[in-house]
């Protein structure tokens, strides 16, 4: 392929894509292009497996599932906003030797990026299919919120969506109800705190980024972010799995607008939750609850040492008291905060409801100000690890 050809291809960075296999179009979220791409990758043995989300008992229950045949893809169609999962560490811990494609939210993609930099995931063996994400809701919060504000039985919800600033549910009788996320969040419901602070809505750090923002009914808006992404799209077209067309100027503008509004919202929440967040005294009360169960460490997708410094004898704490905050959380912060991707998993798993991600994200933000390093994006590790003789 000549340079000119690549140039031509890259100019088609934005496309609308649609599934060509009809049985998938019905069950996939908007157009089913993502499902068809996965089918293409499996059917042509480009990957050994596809890691995606499976609906468990209901729409509030997302369980990661590894698919190994194209036929299985159809069983997992659809997106789940009430399933705040994290898949990157499943890959680094259990699938590092396999060639896989994975459906990722922006935070999954960021975690994968950090793990690739740490040689925990082989960048050549992984294909990341990004899904635009307006945020996720904790499953139990979602159910309570739906009962309280939507006045419906939460078990009747068959589908949910975040669109145009609203959290929209679809009931089993086809009725759709939407409420402004802002209003829900003011009441303490809505998206997870970290999602409210998120500033990456379109996963440009994945090979392709897909979503319905700006798309026409039946089509998926795809942004191609890497050469690998381009190859996949070209292959899927050539093998007859998807068809594509160019998006209109209006569609592009529409998508930008949606994205920018959400980024602004995220930005505002960073200020509200972090800069005007908990005081030192409030943090002390939070740390006082800590039982040193290591859930935050263990769930952190990026934290992975075989031998953890916190388990060394010199950091042993009296088991009858909470650990020394600086000697436990401080040490974790010194290891991980420059790379914190704000995925919020540590908040989710803390048995004591300590808002761990708020301090990690806050310090990442400070680190970003000092060094310009944004976690989860680009090819470089945090400058902390640099051997270079330079200030940062």
């Amino acid at each position: 392929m000549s340079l000119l050809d690549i140039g031509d291809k890259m100019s088609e960075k934005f496309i609308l894509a649609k599934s060509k296999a009809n049985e998938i179009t019905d069950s996939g979220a908007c157009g089913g292009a993502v499902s068809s791409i996965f089918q293409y990758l499996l059917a042509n043995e480009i990957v050994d497996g596809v890691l995606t989300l499976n609906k468990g008992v209901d729409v509030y229950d997302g369980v990661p599932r590894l698919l190994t045949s194209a036929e299985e893809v159809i069983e997992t169609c659809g997106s789940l906003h009430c399933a705040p999962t994290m898949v990157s560490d499943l890959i680094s811990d259990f699938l590092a030797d396999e060639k896989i494609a994975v459906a990722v939210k922006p935070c999954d993609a960021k975690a994968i990026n950090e793990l690739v930099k740490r040689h925990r995931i082989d960048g050549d063996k992984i294909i990341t299919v990004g899904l635009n994400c307006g945020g996720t809701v904790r499953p139990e919060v979602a159910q309570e919120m739906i009962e309280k504000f939507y006045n419906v039985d939460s078990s009747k919800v068959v589908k949910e969506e975040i669109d145009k600033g609203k959290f929209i549910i679809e009931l089993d009788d086809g009725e759709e109800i939407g409420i402004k996320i802002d209003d829900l969040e003011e009441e303490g419901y809505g998206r997870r705190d970290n999602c409210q602070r998120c500033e990456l809505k379109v996963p440009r750090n994945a090979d392709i980024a897909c979503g319905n923002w700006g798309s026409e009914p039946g089509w998926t808006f795809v942004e191609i972010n890497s050469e690998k992404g381009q190859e996949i799209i070209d292959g899927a077209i050539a093998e007859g799995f998807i068809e594509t067309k160019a998006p209109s100027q209006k569609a592009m503008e529409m998508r930008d607008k949606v994205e920018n509004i959400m980024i602004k919202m995220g930005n505002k929440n960073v200020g509200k939750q972090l800069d005007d967040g908990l005081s030192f005294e409030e943090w002390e009360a939070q740390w006082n609850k800590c039982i040193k169960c290591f859930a935050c460490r263990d769930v952190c997708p990026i934290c992975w040492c075989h031998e953890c410094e916190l388990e060394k004898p010199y950091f042993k704490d009296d088991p009858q008291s909470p650990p020394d905050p600086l000697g436990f959380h401080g040490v974790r912060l010194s290891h991980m905060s420059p790379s914190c991707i704000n995925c919020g998993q540590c908040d989710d798993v803390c048995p004591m409801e300590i808002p761990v991600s708020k301090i990690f994200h806050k310090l990442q933000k400070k680190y970003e100000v000092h060094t310009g390093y944004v976690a989860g994006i680009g090819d470089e590790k945090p400058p902390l690890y640099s051997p270079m003789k330079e200030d940062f």
Partner: protein
Amino acid sequence: MLDIKHTICPSCSVGCGLNIVSKDGAVVGTYPYKRHPINEGKNCLNGRNSILQFDNQIENPSIVKNGELEESDYETVFKLIKDQLASIDASELAIICSGNSTNEELDRIKEFADGFGCEKIGFYGYNFPNFAVDVASYDDIAGAKTILAIGDIYRENPLLARRIVLSKENGACLINLDDVEKSITSLNADEFIQFDGHLGDKIDAVKGKLDENSIIIANKVCCKDDFALLESLAGENGAKLLPVFNAPNMKGAMNKLDSWDVEEVKNIIGDSKVLIVVKDNPFEYLSKDDIKGKAFIVNISNEDNAFAKISDVILPGKSWGEKAGTFTNCEGLEQSFDISAEIENDNLGEVEILDELA
């Protein structure tokens, strides 16, 4: 292949959800089960470590000779047990169960005991007696104004402590009673009362503080009398009571079988010639002298521990992840779970073992 399956955590009686990750026939990790209403994907260290029980377990029916396990087969071991059972009166058999078995297994064990005419069937209840009072639910904790916690709930039952944390955020007052100098619970309590040996001495100190908006949560009592004190304390003040146990189905066992204290277990062992112990480690509450050489011990458990070494025969049974069933948690909620660990082994489960012995 990679597989993630829902299960119920076996590490205590709170009844948290837990996802088990298995790969190519082995359990490799856990994954948060965020949809579970009790813990929303949060698990304590014990809970996440419960998968360690799949390592180093006894894999085959075994006969113990001179303190060493010798691999055998089902036919031989079943014959040994049946010969022993045929040689004794029904009154000379005792069965020690535990809160580690599912409700279905406990029913089957009970049925086996009834069929044999054995009346000595029960479990060690860690000083909690069988009780009739309705227990409080977790939702009651959220609405409580005063919470009296007995024991270190924060460390030992963190996902229950989480309910206390949330309730405290709503303004609830936490009083902690314990016989230790300090604990994470005591450090988070609004008031800490230390007692020495018996709860009874300090009961008066809290009496006036409880009312119908109060809840008493206890994860340890020193004796059955202490529990009776708590029951009457709750009764007099209209407070709710929530005993918390250290085994996932101890509440289920409470509902079906006799809860024994140490003296009762000792007496029962003393009067028996054959002792069947199902998924329990009596060394957690008895000394070696209390049990060694007193009876022919049939140990149905795959836990490789000191008790296995003084048993006579061992049938491994199945680990919790390898079976389906129900556990009743401490608030009385019966939760069912499916096989979560896709482990390759052809061991008989406890129900099948008892089918064979009956």
